[in-house]
């Protein structure tokens, strides 16, 4: 009990901040309401610091807490300045002009509270060692995001996106819940470690395989992978750009962490050389990864709306990261650590994707009703270099990094995925990934060409720079991050590899079973008689 609490310090910090933020959001004075974003930031900083002191756990990934939680808190901290002013902007102006304050009409406190709760859900996915816990953590990650999408702008589109996101999310939740139920049915326990031991001693069986496949398909909604990716462009387009940037990171991180936890119960000790997943799962993941990256990239090519393009690219990036999951932790001397590569790529993706959305969020234009809205299309970005060179460079750096251009962060992330894929012998998938990266170059370079090379027609009105300074800070942070984090890429990659080492107790369990073949595990005797 107490040891478990020691693992949860970052979450507790976030929860404390959540409570304070919700109270502050209802404060009568606008100064205290404005403090809510700072308290959110403070909570995230506290969580970041505390996560470095996270102990080793006894779960599936014993060393994962410091790296993964720190990554979640750090990216959350980077997205936070972008979030500023997303909700309540117009209402605060009305109050500023002397209208009386109605607590029912402000949503700022809830918005930041949901932001923190969602990040807390992702962290809880990391700490989880039990199916029930995993289920609750995944729901805690996604339930707040549904509301965040719906309330991110006052436009009808956002609410429709929120409803769509919610309904498909509920479908996916039911799917992975059914998968979890099957896993429990196959093993009689919800503890991931006990499930892993059961799978190793008694095999997976039909129900176990079915459960795991259903759970993976359900969770693929969170990471925006096939077959549950269809919502992505609509939801990202409907939500305000800051919320889209958040959606591209938090649920994805949660989904990948849960996938790793689930897959490590089976382990990567199967197949011909004892370094692959069981065949049924391997084929499932292979197909999901191939379809996801191809679908995402090909459809991104056809988009003229930058937000939809980034949404499809988000699908494609999930496909890349799935390659790492397929490879596994690299048992034996020949295979690279695919899990480490995927988790490092998640960090890279969080940093570079933020910048692309932040640039979109920084620019505004008048819509047909004369209201200022965030720009969305590639057309709006044309000639940005002449007007706003800083933003244009941020967009260029992030797009090139997303593409995987050598000196930038995205390249180092992708390099790890490629090498781990090759070392595990997944040549076919690596070739598909390479082809996809080439296809992706077309649309990322189109973004770069629009902002850097194209000139704006004289008769078109210029997108105005938003008055929210935080958004420019976020764009700057991301652009600088793409350049600077490269310096520590080696250390981060090593930390990520270390974090994703599968529990040695589970890995050595096979050997112990072989030794103890004459005296099998006691529970299994009890169960069979």
């Amino acid at each position: 009990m107490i040891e478990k609490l020691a693992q949860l310090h970052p979450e507790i910090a976030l929860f404390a901040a959540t409570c304070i933020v919700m109270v502050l959001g209802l404060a009568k004075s606008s100064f205290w309401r404005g403090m809510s974003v700072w308290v959110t930031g403070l909570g995230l900083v506290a969580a970041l610091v505390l996560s470095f002191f996270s102990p080793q756990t006894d779960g599936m990934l014993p060393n994962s807490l410091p790296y993964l939680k720190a990554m979640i808190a750090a990216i959350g901290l980077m997205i936070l300045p972008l979030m500023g002013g997303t909700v309540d902007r117009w209402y605060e102006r009305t109050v500023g002009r002397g209208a009386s304050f109605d607590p029912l009409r402000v949503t700022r406190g809830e918005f930041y509270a949901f932001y923190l709760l969602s990040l807390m859900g992702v962290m809880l996915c990391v700490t989880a060692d039990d199916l029930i816990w995993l289920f609750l953590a995944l729901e805690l990650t996604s339930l707040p995001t549904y509301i965040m999408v719906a309330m991110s702008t006052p436009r009808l589109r956002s609410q429709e996106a929120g409803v769509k996101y919610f309904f498909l999310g509920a479908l996916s939740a039911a799917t992975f819940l059914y998968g979890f139920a099957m896993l429990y049915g196959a093993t009689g326990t919800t503890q991931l470690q006990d499930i892993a031991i059961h799978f190793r001693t008694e095999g997976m069986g039909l129900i176990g395989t079915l459960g795991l496949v259903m759970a993976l398909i359900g969770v693929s909604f969170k990471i925006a992978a096939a077959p549950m990716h269809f919502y992505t462009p609509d939801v990202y387009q409907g939500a305000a750009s800051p919320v889209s940037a958040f959606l591209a990171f938090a649920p994805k991180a949660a989904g990948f962490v849960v996938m790793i936890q689930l897959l490590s119960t089976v382990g990567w000790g199967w197949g011909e050389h004892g370094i692959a997943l069981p065949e049924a799962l391997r084929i499932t993941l292979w197909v999901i990864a191939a379809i996801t990256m191809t679908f995402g990239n090909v459809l991104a090519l056809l988009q003229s709306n930058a937000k939809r393009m980034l949404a499809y690219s988000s699908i494609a990036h999930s496909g890349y990261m799935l390659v790492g999951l397929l490879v596994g932790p690299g048992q034996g001397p020949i295979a690279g650590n695919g899990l480490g590569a995927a988790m490092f790529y998640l960090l890279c993706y969080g940093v570079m994707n933020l910048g692309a959305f932040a640039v979109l969020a920084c620019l505004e234009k008048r819509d047909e009703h004369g209201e200022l809205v965030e720009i969305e299309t590639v057309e709006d970005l044309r000639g940005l270099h002449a007007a706003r060179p800083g933003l244009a460079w941020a967009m260029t750096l992030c797009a090139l990094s997303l593409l995987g251009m050598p000196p930038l962060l995205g390249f180092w992330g992708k390099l790890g995925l490629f090498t781990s894929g090759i070392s595990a012998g997944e040549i076919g998938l690596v070739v598909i990934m390479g082809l996809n990266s080439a296809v992706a170059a077309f649309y990322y370079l189109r973004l770069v060409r629009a902002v850097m090379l194209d000139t704006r027609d004289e008769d078109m009105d210029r997108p105005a720079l938003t008055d929210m300074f935080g958004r420019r800070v976020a764009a700057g942070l991301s652009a600088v991050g793409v350049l600077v984090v490269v310096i520590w890429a080696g250390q981060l990659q090593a930390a990520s590899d270390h974090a994703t080492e599968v529990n040695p107790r589970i890995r050595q369990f096979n050997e112990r079973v072989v030794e103890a073949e004459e005296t099998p595990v006691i529970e299994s005797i009890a169960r069979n008689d």
Partner: protein
Amino acid sequence: MVKAGPVTDRAPIDSPDSGVRPRMLLAFDQSAYLPILLIIMMAIAFAVGNIGVSLILGPRREGDVKSITYESGMNPLGTARKRFNVRFYILAMTFLVFDVEIIFLYPWAVSFAQIDPRSPDGSLFLGRVLFFLFTTVVAYVYAWKKGVFRFD
């Protein structure tokens, strides 16, 4: 390196060999369900009997008052198709919190009865559930401050 996977040849639970076990484990004491069956039958008999008896014995007078919708003694206002105020839905949602809270109280109540009243665990056990109830109260205070229960 040792190859993972099934190392014992014991039948997995979904194999036909183990088909006996579920039947054995899931068999229940059928006689325990007889009272439930009797209750259901009594309920049906009571409902059908009352309607039947009132059909046979009851006086029959038609009239305006008789034909209007029964609204628990109140005079019905307007049509049934009128849209509900959205506040009702909000109240319904806040009710859901209590609804779910009760589920958690059941296992607590069952195990609380087994605790020795003189042991120190009892007060700790009670304190935990009181804290749990308190968190709901906090949520309600928040909803109240937010103005959810204002009907103006």
